[in-house]
Every structure is written in structure tokens, then in C-alpha cells.
């Protein structure tokens, strides 16, 4: 590999790491790891739906857009269902069932009309960026430019609402607006990450840096989350290169080691 390409790959990995670090901590602090499950399932369904629509209608819809929109809609569905009808667990289970149905139905329909489309859809599961492109990096940097400032402006309120929802509402915080903003940012981060590292690795990686920060540090939690996410992402890419596997595989192996490390540290 040329030096330029290597630099691009590791720059993309670092940018992905920062994106994960920004969203992971609020996810963990607001006890929303199950919600991350909804987003990643929805991103996959949305991506496959986007590919199917492009194949059938012959249009060039950006697949990340359909992935983001489906993730956002299902996140809002979870919020509304858990606000008015069911517990959060039940609402998440319903949304995941819906996302999985979209995935299965449109994968089947896609397989009937375009095997190439199906393999493109599969790349969202395993990840595409064994070789990063400039557009991968641009996409991640654009998402970073939106997500990082908004997360830092609102993470205190998101945390507070998780701590005491009624108390936060009594203080005049618009709990619903903050929740929706957080869901939108989570959906954007997940759809961006899934484009490069794949849904599976995104799902695993979204929770770990935040968990490391909360379990092992008392202060500077965001710094800890950013650093551990960047290490996992960069290390995952390096490991993948060494083992000659997709980056999602390297990230998955390192993430599993990180989880084991946390368990051992807690037991000790």
C-alpha cells in the first residue's frame, strides 16, 4: 500500500474513533445501550431499503440518507412508545422487530432482482472500508463537525434528564426536544460509522469507549471516551491489516479484549 493510502486509512480510522468517542459516553451515561441496538438494526434496514429503492426506481438516493432516516424514525417511535404506552425494553424490542422485518423483506426482494445489490447491502453488515476513500473521510469529518459541538453543548442536559426526568422537566428543560436531538445525533453517527466499519462493529464499538470512561475514570470522561475510541479504532485497523481481515474484524477483536479487560479489572 502507498503511504498516501495508508495515511488516508488511518486518518479515517482516527475520525471514526472520535465520532464513536463523542456519542458513546452520552449513550452509556443515559443508559441507552439498548437504544444503540435499535439504531444499528435500523441503519441496516434503512441501508438495504435505500439500495432496493435505487435498484427498482433507478434513482441515486444516498444510502446513508435512507439509513439515517429509518434510524431516526425508529428512534422516535421508541421514544413515543415508551413515553405513552410501553416500557422502554418493550418499545425497543418492537422497533428492533420492525427494523429486522425491513431488513429481511427488502433483502429478499433485492436478492430477486439484483445479486450485486444484495452484496452491496451485505457490505453494510461487515463494513466496506478495507480501503478508505477520500469521500469516507469527508463523510466522517462532516458528521464530526455536526455531532461533536452539539453533543458537548447538550450532554449535561442529556445526563441530567436520565438522572431525574421529572426534576429536569420541573426545571424547565424541554426533555422531549433533548431526547429527539440525541436520537438524531445517534442516528447520524451510527449511519456514518456503519458506512465504513459496518453495522456489527459499530454496534459493538458504540458502547465500549463510554463504558471504559465511566468504569475506569472519575473525571475527564469525554477525554477518556475519545482516547479509548480512537485507540480501539486505530488499533482495530492495524490489527486487521496485520491479520489480513476486514477492519470490522480487527475492531471486534480489540473490543472483545477491552470488555474482558473491564470485567477482569472489576473482579480484581
Amino acid at each position, binding site marked *: 500500500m502507498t503511504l498516501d493510502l495508508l495515511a488516508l486509512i488511518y486518518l479515517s480510522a482516527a475520525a471514526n474513533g472520535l465520532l464513536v468517542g463523542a456519542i458513546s459516553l452520552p449513550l452509556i451515561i443515559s443508559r441507552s445501550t439498548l437504544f444503540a441496538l435499535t439504531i444499528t438494526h435500523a441503519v441496516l434496514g434503512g441501508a438495504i431499503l435505500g439500495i432496493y429503492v435505487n435498484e427498482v426506481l433507478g434513482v441515486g438516493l444516498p444510502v446513508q440518507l435512507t439509513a439515517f432516516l429509518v434510524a431516526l424514525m425508529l428512534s422516535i417511535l421508541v421514544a413515543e412508545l415508551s413515553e405513552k404506552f410501553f416500557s422502554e425494553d418493550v418499545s425497543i424490542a418492537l422497533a428492533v422487530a420492525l427494523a429486522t422485518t425491513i431488513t429481511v423483506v427488502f433483502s429478499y426482494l433485492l436478492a430477486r432482482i439484483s445479486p450485486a445489490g444484495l452484496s452491496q447491502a451485505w457490505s453494510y453488515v461487515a463494513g466496506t472500508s478495507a480501503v478508505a476513500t477520500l469521500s469516507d473521510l469527508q463523510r466522517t469529518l462532516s458528521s464530526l463537525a455536526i455531532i461533536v459541538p452539539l453533543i458537548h453543548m447538550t450532554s449535561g442536559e442529556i445526563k441530567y434528564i436520565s438522572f431525574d426526568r421529572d426534576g429536569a422537566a*420541573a426545571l424547565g428543560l424541554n426533555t422531549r426536544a433533548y431526547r429527539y436531538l440525541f436520537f438524531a445525533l445517534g442516528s447520524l453517527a451510527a449511519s456514518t460509522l456503519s458506512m465504513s466499519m459496518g453495522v456489527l462493529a459499530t454496534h459493538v464499538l458504540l458502547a465500549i469507549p463510554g463504558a471504559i470512561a465511566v468504569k475506569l475514570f472519575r473525571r475527564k470522561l469525554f477525554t477518556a471516551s475519545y482516547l479509548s475510541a480512537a485507540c480501539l479504532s486505530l488499533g482495530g485497523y492495524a490489527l486487521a491489516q496485520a491479520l489480513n481481515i476486514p477492519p470490522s474484524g480487527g475492531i471486534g477483536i480489540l473490543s472483545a479484549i477491552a470488555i474482558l479487560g473491564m470485567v477482569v479489572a472489576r473482579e480484581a
Partner: protein
Amino acid sequence: MAEIELKNVSYSFGDRVALEDVSFELNSPFFCAVMGPNGAGKSTLLKLMLGLLKHQSGIIRIMGYDVPREAGKVRRLIGYVPQVIDIDYRVPMSVEEVVAMAALSRDLPPRIMTGNVRRKVREVLELVELDDPSMQFSELSGGQRQRALIARALVSDPRILLLDEPYSMLDFNMKCEIAELLYRLHKDKGIDIFLVAHELSPCIHLEPIVILLNKRVYAIGRAGEVLTLENLRRAYPGLTEVPAGFILGEDHG
């Protein structure tokens, strides 16, 4: 003008009636305790007074402001202390963060903790006798948690404190300490107290105004007038009489 005025307030969760035709007025200064069994609608009453639940029928006015229409103005006059069981302790929050958000909530984001806010937080923590703002909320004892939540309610200089079950999950001595603290705030700072509880023994010696509630108001007045066996029998259908007195129910939460 009454400081708190409720007229014919009713509220239902679907088919389940939570409050039925509740009316009362309180003039400042007051130290008022709403007493009733579990499921009597006490927390619902507080949430309606704060505008946290959508108003269904009747009139609620706090210091002349109509709650459904002017909830924002009302919340600026009120400090709210929720039930401790509604707090998620697993969220990592320091005492300073818990209290400071109440001071910062009136600003626009990003809400940055300035020196003035820090000073104000320390002042109210001193008032409730908590000395370490860096402690994690999850590491506090039950009584300290209640004090931290009271400090949060105090930081915006409220005229009225609304407290939801402030004595729950505490041993009796701690309940009495919290009751004394509230009474001191009432007497020294002129803050009106409106608390709901299913037992009043920790504060009964402070002679609060008592509202006996079980979906509707059964009696209102001084403790000695309200807490008669006849009133309690009507408000507490499950009341058990024993030779030494009577049993109202189990501890909340």
C-alpha cells in the same frame, strides 16, 4: 389572593381516577403536609401543580398564575424535590452537578458553570449541611441524597418548596432531621412548604396544616383536627385498628 388555589381539580389515567374534585386554598405562610395512602393521587397532585401532567379539569393557580397556561412562570417560583425512587443513581453525577443544573437551567445552552454558580451551590449546600460538592450522588446516604435534592430546589431561591415523599427510604431519626431542616427553611427563610407523604409522624410535632387525601380531599386543617380516627377510617379503607392505636400501611418505596 391565596398562594395555592385548587378548584374542582380532577385527573384520570385512562379509566383510573387519580384525583376527583379536589379543592383547597393555602395562604402564605404555610407548612403543609398532604397525607394519604399509596395510590391516593399525592404525586399526581404535585405534578399537576408543576404543570408536568396535562391539565384535564378544574382550576390550579399558584401565586395567581394559572398553571396550565403559565407553567413556566410557576416553575420559577417553585422548587421541586422528587421522590428519591424516581432518581437513577447509576447516572454518574456529582452533588455539585445535581445542584448546579437548577441554577443553570434558566440560561441557554451551553450552560457553563461559572464562579458565581459554584458559590451559590456551596451556599445552599451549607444550608442543608452538606459539605463536599465533589461527592458522587450515588455515594451519598439516603438522608444526604434528600438534602442534596433539597439544595437543588433551593438554589433558584424559590417561594414554595414542593416535596414528594421526602421521608421515604429513611430511618426514623433521619426522617425527623429532614422534617426539622424543612421547618427551619420555612421559619428562617420564609419558604412555604408543601409536602406529600403517606405518614406524617416525623413532622407532626411541627404542627403542619394537614390535607387528608385519597383521590379526594377528606379533611383539611391542623393535625389535631384532621387526624381523627373517623377521618382516617374514611381516607384509609385498609386501616387496621390494634389495641395500641392503628396501622396505616407500609413504608413507601
